[in-house]
C-alpha cells in the first residue's frame, strides 16, 4: 500500500470515531433531559423576558421539539460552527470558546514542557538501566521507577511542594506569577496576560525579563510533577525494549566485529529501541492530558484542567461537556499524528 493511501484510510477511520465521540458527549449532556442542553447555551447572567426569548430562540435553533437524533445533528452543526455554549465558574464566566482561548495555551505549554522533560529524563535513564543491567544503578532505577509508578500524581506534586517549596524554599508553588510583580504592566489586566495568555511567553514578548524569570520559577514545579508522573512507565518500557534489542543477532554481530560498546549501544541498539517509543507517545499524550487536570488543580495553574475541575465542582454543564469534547479531539488528533509518523518510519505498518 502506498503511504498516502494509508493516510487517507486512516483519515476515513477518523469519521466514525469523531461521530461516536460527539454522540457520547451529546448523550451525556442529555442524560437528565433536554433542559441540560439549554443550560449549556443559556448565558447564566440573562434573566426575565430576555431569557424567555432566548429559550424560544434556542428551541427553534436546536429543534428541541424534534426527536433526539435530529437534535444531535443540529447540535453537531452548532459545534462545527464554533458555538460551544456558555460556562459559569469562579475562574471564568462567559462563552466556552473564549474560555478555551484563555486556558488552552497554558495547558499546551505545560504539557509540551512536560513531554520534553519526559524525553530528557526518561530516555537516557531507560537506556542506561538496560545497558548496565543488574548493576546497582539499574536496581536503584528499577525500584525508583516502580515506586514512582505506584504513586498517585497528587502525592508526587505534594512531595515536590514539601521538599522544594516548603523545606528548601527555592520554588514557588501556587499560581503562575507573583501578583505584585505584574500589577504595573499594561498587558496584564485582571489576572490575564495578553496576547497569548501564557504569562511566561507574554513577558518574553514584552521584554519584561524579571517577570519572565518569576513565571519560569512558578512553571517548574507543575511541569516537573507532570513529567515525573509519566516518566516511570517510560523508563520501564524503554528498558525492556532496549534489553530485547540488545539480544538481537545484529547486535551480537556488531560486537563480534570488534566495535566499541558505546558505538553498539548508541548507534545500533538505541535507534531500534526507540521505535516503540513513538506509539508510546500517543499514550503519553493521554496521560499528560489526564495528569494535567490534577496538576493544574494542585498548583492553581490556569489551564483547561483547572477550568474542568472548577466546572465539575460548580456543576457547570457547559464547561464539563466542552472540555470532554476538547480533550477527545486533541487525543484523536495526537493518535492520528503518531500513526502517520509511525507509518513513515516503519514500512511494515502500512501493509
Amino acid at each position, binding site marked *: 500500500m502506498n503511504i498516502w493511501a494509508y493516510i487517507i484510510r486512516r483519515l476515513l477511520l477518523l469519521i466514525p470515531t469523531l461521530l461516536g465521540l460527539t454522540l457520547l458527549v451529546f448523550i451525556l449532556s442529555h442524560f437528565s433531559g433536554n433542559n441540560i442542553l439549554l443550560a449549556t447555551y443559556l448565558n447564566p447572567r440573562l434573566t426575565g423576558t430576555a431569557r424567555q426569548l432566548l429559550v424560544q430562540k434556542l428551541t427553534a435553533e436546536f429543534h428541541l421539539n424534534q426527536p433526539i437524533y435530529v437534535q444531535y445533528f443540529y447540535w453537531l452543526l452548532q459545534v462545527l460552527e464554533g458555538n460551544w455554549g456558555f460556562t459559569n465558574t469562579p475562574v471564568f464566566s462567559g462563552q466556552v470558546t473564549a474560555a478555551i482561548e484563555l486556558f488552552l495555551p497554558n495547558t499546551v505549554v505545560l504539557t509540551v514542557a512536560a513531554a520534553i522533560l519526559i524525553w530528557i529524563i526518561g530516555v537516557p535513564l531507560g537506556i542506561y538501566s538496560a545497558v548496565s543491567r543488574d548493576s546497582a544503578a539499574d536496581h536503584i532505577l528499577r525500584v525508583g521507577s516502580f515506586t514512582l509508578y*505506584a504513586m*498517585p500524581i497528587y502525592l508526587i506534586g505534594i512531595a515536590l511542594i514539601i521538599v522544594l517549596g516548603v523545606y528548601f524554599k527555592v520554588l514557588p508553588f501556587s499560581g503562575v506569577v507573583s501578583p505584585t510583580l505584574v500589577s504595573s504592566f499594561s498587558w496584564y489586566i485582571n489576572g490575564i496576560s495578553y496576547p497569548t495568555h501564557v504569562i511566561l511567553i507574554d513577558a518574553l514578548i514584552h521584554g519584561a525579563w524579571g517577570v519572565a524569570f518569576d513565571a519560569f520559577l512558578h512553571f517548574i514545579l507543575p511541569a516537573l510533577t507532570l513529567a515525573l508522573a509519566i516518566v516511570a512507565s517510560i523508563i520501564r518500557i524503554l528498558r525492556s525494549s532496549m534489553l530485547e534489542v540488545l539480544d538481537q543477532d545484529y547486535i551480537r554481530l556488531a560486537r563480534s566485529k570488534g566495535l566499541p560498546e558505546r558505538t553498539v549501544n548508541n548507534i545500533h541498539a538505541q535507534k531500534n529501541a526507540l521505535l516503540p517509543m513513538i506509539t508510546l507517545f500517543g499514550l503519553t499524550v493521554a496521560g499528560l492530558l489526564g495528569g494535567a*487536570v490534577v496538576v493544574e488543580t494542585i498548583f492553581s495553574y490556569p489551564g483547561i484542567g483547572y477550568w*474542568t*475541575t472548577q466546572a465539575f465542582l460548580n456543576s457547570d454543564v457547559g464547561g464539563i461537556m466542552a472540555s470532554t469534547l476538547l480533550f477527545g479531539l486533541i487525543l484523536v488528533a495526537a*493518535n492520528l499524528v503518531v500513526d502517520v509518523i509511525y507509518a513513515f518510519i516503519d514500512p511494515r505498518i502500512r501493509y
Partner: protein
Amino acid sequence: MSKKTSGGTVNTRRWDNIKLSFSVFFANTAAVVGLIIVLVYLADAFIMQIDPGLLGITYANTLVPNFLNPVPTAPSWQHPFGTTYPGVDLYTSTLKAIRIDLFYSFLVVGVGAVVGSVIGVISAAIGGMMDEIVMRITDIFFSIPYLILALAIGFILGRTLMNMSLTLALVWWPIYARYTRSTTLSTKEFTFVEAARASGVSRIKIIFRHILPNSLPPVFIQISLDLGAIMVIFSTLAFIGFITNASVPELGYLTSLGLNYVQIAPWAVIFPGVVITIFALAVNLLGDGLRDVIDPRRRS
C-alpha cells in the same frame, strides 16, 4: 496426551503442576512481600467490617472531627500519624479508609472485568459486524482521558462514592473488552475449539465452556495489576472533590483535607498518600509474581 494416561497419573501431574506454581511464586521474594502486604490490608478491612473495636475504633464509617482543636497536630504517642483538619486522628482514619477504598476498588475492578470480559469474548467469538462495532465503541472510550470521562459521567450521575465507582467501572470495562478480545482471538484458533465445533457442540457452549476459561488466566493477572491503579485513580477523583459528604473516610479525601496545611503539617498529606502507594506497589509486585506463575516461558 494426558487424556490417554490413567486417572491417577493425571492427578499426580496436576499436583506436580500446582507444586511447581507455588515454588515459582515463592522463589520471587518481591511477590511474597507484595502478597503479605495485600493480606495485611485485607485483614484490616475485615476487622473494620466485623469488629472495629479490636483496634479501638468505635465508628468505622465516619471520620471523627474534633472542632475544639481543628488545626493539625504533629505525630505523637496519642496520634501515631498526627491529626489533620478538622482535628481528625489520621491513624484511625487511615485504618477506616483502607476498608472503604478496598471495597470500592474491588467493586470497580470486578464490575469492569466481568462486563468487559464477557463483551470481549462474545465480540471476538462472533466476529464480523458485531466485533467491529464493539471495537469502535472501545476506541471512543480510549479517545478521552479516563479522568475527564470519569468527571463527565460522574457529573451526570451525581457526586457520591457509589456513583464514583460506577463511573470508573464505566470507564474501565473497554480495557478488559480489548484485552479478552485479543486473547480470545488466539484461543479461537486452537485445535480443541475446532474439535468441539466439529463434534457439534453449540456455539454458546463453545464460548462459555471452552473459550472463556482458557482466556481467563491473563485477565486475572490484569485484575491484580489494575487493582492498584484503580485505587490510585479512585483516590485521585476523591482528592479533586468528587466526595461531597464531609465525613467519609477515604484516602484521597483525607489527603485533600490536609492540603491547606501542607506548609505547617506535611504529615497530614504524606501518610494517607503513602498508604495508597504501598498498596499499589504491593499489588503490582503480586501481579508480577502471578504472571511468572502463569506464563510458561518464565517457568523454566
